[in-house]
Structures are given as C-alpha cells and as structure tokens.
C-alpha cells in the first residue's frame, strides 16, 4: 500500500515537476533582493529572458541563430532612444523596442530560414554583423559613446521606476510574464508542430505543415522576446551601447543556454544566472575572461551536453 502511494506521489511530483520548479524559481526571485544586489539580479533576469527567447529557437525548432545580439541590441537602442529623445513612458519604450525586434526578426528570418543547420547559423551571424555596422555608423546610437542617461520614467504614469524596488518588481513581472508565455507557446499545438519539424522536417512537410511558415513565426517570436529583454535592459542600466549588438553577445547567449541545458524550460534561466555571476567574478581576474568562456564552451560540448538543468532533470528523472 505504502509503496503504491509513494509511487503515485512520485508520479504526481513528476507530472507537476514544471509547476513546482516554477514556484520555486518565483519564490527565490521574490526573496532574492534581500540577499543579492538588485541591479545584478535585474541584469541576470534580462539575460535569462534573452536566453529563453534564444532557446525557443534552438531547443524547440532546432535552429541555431548566431545573430541574436541583433534583436537584443537594436531593441535596447530603440527603447533607449524612445525613452530619452521621444519622451516615451517606459511601457511604450519597451514595446517599441520589442516591435523593432519583431520587424527585424521577420526580415532576417525570411532570409535565413531558406537554409538549415550551420548555414542558418552563418547567415544569421553575417546579417547581425551587417546590422552591427549600421549601429556603429548611425548617428542616433552615438557610436562608441552609446545612448547614455536614459530616464527610467514612470510606469503607467504613476509608478516611479527610479526607485530600485519598483524597477525590480517590473523587471520580475516582465520576466515571469514572458516566461509563462514561452511555456504556453511550447505546449500549444503550434509548439507541437515546431517540435515535429525539429525531429523530422520532411515528415512534417509531408503531413501538410508548411514548415517554412512555422519556422518563420517561431523566429519572429524568438526575436520579439529577445527584444523585450534588450529593451528592459536598456532601462535597467539606463544606457544602450554597441556591446549589446556585437557578435560576442550572440556567442554569450548561446553559451548561457548551452550551460543551462538546450531545450529545457528552466535551463536558460539557470545558465544566464550562472554566466552573469561568473562574469562578475571575472571582472576581478580580468585577463582570463575569454579563456574561461572558451573552456566552458569546450567542456559543455564534449562532456556536459545536457547542461545544468538537463543533468538535474536526468538525476531526478523529471521534466524541467
């Protein structure tokens, strides 16, 4: 009897593993500001959302984009410009950043999905680099100086975001909202088709799914979420700069997702927190930052392909 009950409990645990993990994550994030530095947490949350957006593409459609910095960086530029020069309130600034990212995503996506696999990676990288050069030259980005002193403004006209805890709550709400939305997308019929395309594209096509259209929609969605992350980051740090559009940023988001676990729901979040913490450590040892990142890449690819959350899920035998 007891054993059956335990097994049943296990099963329930397993079925609800994602919900439990979500509650744990939310709980941790709510209490986190009491023991960690809020700006650091907000940065990690922005990157976590960025990594989740990226993971939507690699983990659930099987497309490796090497140009996601394009959406992240351009959204942060547009949001910063909107808030500073046009005087947009924060919610509209973030929306305009996200809309820009969606538009760019549609163009880049339409070009890139014509090829698969590594070609896809190289094309996204090349297009992102092209847009990087535009960002360098365009006068409104102020080149190397970046857009500085971006006002955080008042959310909906009355919540003052200059207050650190208000800002943290907004970033947390944006992150959790987008996270749930991504979860919803993955588990919708649309998401199932995406997974089918990932597993066997010709078969999906033979079943009558227009795979190109599905891939394009997924690409635009991923770009949009990346844009939300970039736009939010511009408000958190009150600046937008070339680092966020440059290609090492695309490499970093890949690394975050890989470390956390490709194709897992919580992997990108864990990976982002891991990498941002690491980056903080590395500011003090400076010179070895590239080497350390490179070693992590190599180790992950050779020995640790499931990533932190993937391995954890394996040990606990649950879905995360």
């Amino acid at each position: 009897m007891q054993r059956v009950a335990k097994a049943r409990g296990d099963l329930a645990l397993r079925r609800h593993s994602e919900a439990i993990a979500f509650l744990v994550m939310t709980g941790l994030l709510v209490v986190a500001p009491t023991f960690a530095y809020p700006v650091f947490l907000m940065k990690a949350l922005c990157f976590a959302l960025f990594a989740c957006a990226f993971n939507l593409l690699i983990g659930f459609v099987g497309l490796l984009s090497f140009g996601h910095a394009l959406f992240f960086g351009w959204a942060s530029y547009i949001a910063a410009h909107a808030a500073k020069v046009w005087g947009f309130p924060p919610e509209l600034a973030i929306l305009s950043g996200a809309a820009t990212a969606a538009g760019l995503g549609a163009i880049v996506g339409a070009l890139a999905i014509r090829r698969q696999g590594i070609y896809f990676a190289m094309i996204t990288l090349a297009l992102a680099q092209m847009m990087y050069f535009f960002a360098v030259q365009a006068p409104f980005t102020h080149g190397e100086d970046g857009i500085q002193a971006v006002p955080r403004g008042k959310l909906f006209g009355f919540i003052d975001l200059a207050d650190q805890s208000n800002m943290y709550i907004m970033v947390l709400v944006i992150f959790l909202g987008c996270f749930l939305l991504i979860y919803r997308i993955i588990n919708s019929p649309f998401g199932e088709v995406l997974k089918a395309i990932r597993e066997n594209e010709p078969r999906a096509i033979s079943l009558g799914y227009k795979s190109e259209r599905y891939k394009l929609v997924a690409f635009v969605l991923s770009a949009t979420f990346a844009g939300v992350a970039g736009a939010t980051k511009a408000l958190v740090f009150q600046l937008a700069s070339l680092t966020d559009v440059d290609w090492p940023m695309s490499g970093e988001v890949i690394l975050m997702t890989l470390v956390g676990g490709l194709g897992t729901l919580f992997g990108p979040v864990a990976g982002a927190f891991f990498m941002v913490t690491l980056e903080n450590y590395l500011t003090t040892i400076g010179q070895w930052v590239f080497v350390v990142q490179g070693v992590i890449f190599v180790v992950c690819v050779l020995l640790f392909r499931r990533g932190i959350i993937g391995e954890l899920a394996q040990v606990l035998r649950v879905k995360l």
Partner: protein
Amino acid sequence: MKRLFTLTAVAVVFGCGCAQAQYTDGTIKIGVMNDMSGTYADLSGQGSVIAARMAVEDFGAAAKGMKVEIVGADHQNKPDVGSNVVRTWIDVDKVDVIVDVPTSSVALAVNEIVRDKNKVFLVSGAAASDLTGPKCTPNTIHWTYDTWALANGTGKAIVKTGGDTWFFLTADYAFGHALERDTAAVVEKNGGKVLGKVRHPFPGTDFSSFLLQAQASKAKIIGLANAGSDTINSIKQASEFGITSGGQNLAALLAFITDVHALGLQTAQGLIMTEAWYWDLNDANREFTKKFAPQDKGVHPTMVHAGVYSAVTHYLKAVEALKSDADGKAVVAKMKEMPTDDKLFGKGVVRADGRKIHPMYLFEVKKPSESKAPWDYYKLRATIPADEAFRPLAEGGCPLVKS
C-alpha cells in the same frame, strides 16, 4: 558577493588608525576600473593599478595614519559590466573613488552613477571631451587628455611648422567624426587647408585603398582620425605603399606609446602625435619608469598610467586636507581649490568644469638609427603651454561654469 570583492584587494596599506580623521568605514577605497583583457589593456590595464599603488606608497599614506585600499576590476569594455561593478563597489564595498576607465561608453555611464551616488570619478583613460563639456558633473575630474586637446595640439603645431594642407582618414563613427571635425577647425583657424577626407568603416583591416585616395590628394599631412588597431594598420600600410617616403607625413590624432611599440620604429618613424606625458622627458619620469616597468611586464608607462598616479596623489592630498572622504562633491571641490603638484605632471590646476590643466607635448617618432635604448621612441617637437592646451572654459558648454 561581499567576499568576492574583498578578494579583489590588490594592495592594502595598513595605517595605525590613531588619527581622528573620518573616513567612511575607516578606509579610503580606490577602485581602478579599466580594460584588462581587451584593446586598451596595454595602455591602461594592470599598469593603472600599479600606478595607483605607487601613488599611495609615495604619498606615505600609512605614515600619515590613512588606511588606503586599492581594488581593481576589468570592465571588458562593456558599459553594463562597468556600471554593475561601480554600483556594487559603491553600494556594497564602500569604494570612495573610481579611477581611470578608458572606453567612452563606460566612462560616460560611470560619470552618471558617480554623480548620483556623490562619490569621486577621476578619468585618465577615456578621451571623450564631453566629460568636461555638456556632461560635466561636480564629481568628475578629467585628468590626462581629451580629444579636443589632441586635435588642438596636433593640428596647431603641425600647421605652424609648415604642414598646411591636410587630408583626413576618418573612422566612420561618432568618435572619428568628432576628432576630424575638431582638428579640421583648428587647422583652418591657423591658416591651413583641408583638401579632402575619406571615411573608412570601423573597425577596418585594409586601409590601402583609402591611403591611395589620400596620396592622390597631394596633401602634406594625412590626419588619422581613428584609434587602436585601425591607426596601427593605417600607419603600417602607409609605410608599405611608400606614402611616408613620398614626402607626405602622417599625424595620428589618438595614439599611445604602446601603439608605437607595436608598430616598431621602422614603420612608425616620422609619425607625429600629441601626448600629455612621456617617460623619457625628465629625471623624475625616468625614475618612476624604472620602478614601474618591471612590475608591468616591461611595458613603459603611458600617459594614462602617469595620469592615474597624478590623480590619485592629488585626491589623497585633498582627502588629507579635508580629513574626510565621505562627501564626493566636497572632495572634488577641494581638489579644484588646491593647486596640483606631483613629480610626474609638475604644477597645475583643476578647472571649474573638472578639466585638469597641464602642458601637452607634440612628439615625432624617432628613426631606428636615432633610438638608443628599448622604448626610446620620441623626440619632442613642441610644447603646448598649459593655457593653450585645453578647450577654453567658456566653449565647453559645461553647466557648472555658467552658475
């Protein structure tokens, strides 16, 4: 996090703790932040931490009962990493002064944070003249050089010595445009003529095609309004295409002695540039270099390193006079009020807009045959007196000046 940053302590100079001075959490904490792994690692990097440490030692902080601690960090040329470090330093680790910070995007971001938190920001590595212009703050002092001073020094001195026709090779982004604009204005004001310009993409690798256009212009001087590896490659390729041997001279508008070292004299000879400091200029500088170089892999100090030394020295003097480091605005006001005097930069002043005033020097890179020792690279062509070296106070548009 806290533990993490205490690990960063590079040097701790213990005091006896017997003085009555009021220092926040008992110590004066100096945060040296710059690029320790990227493009600017040679000209700032670890060397700036060494220079700051030497300044603290020479000041004799320990003997005076001041407890000074130096922490260092790498901003990786990313403004978000830089602002995160500075915010944590100030809020968690109680750092009182931020020093160096090359890369204008990071410097401008730090400028805002330091003002909000009322600490002190001493810029040595960054070039942006906006820091003492529209973006000046009562908490920031721009110490070593800026784009205006470089453009002015190089432009004016060259025109006066006969280089009156110019062609610009400009990096196509905000920084390059500003450098080109400022220099062209100086050239024309002094009776020179700008024959043309070409804007190259940033970053570039091959400049030969732009250099040929510069050659065809027959201008006497080719002004390089770019930086870092772009400048190095332009100079290297100009020598390859026989431009320098053909009678045209190159003027680098932003270059450091480490760039000359990378090029080698064979290639760099004849190059004209402006700097605020050179290690072989006098005995005091040479003595400083003798102590500095062995600690920084043999690299001889750049003007950025010397600027860090000078800035930290003056900061400590002001704090000593005030007996407090708590109020950043007050410390900076004191620094502006006291004349500066240290062994590397001599006597000078800090202006109301936060600009440190000292002479600038126009150097020409020696021929290989003229160089007698390693790092013996420059001969002095002109000294630009302190009152002419920097942008006049009224022209910067700094809000602090009007009030």
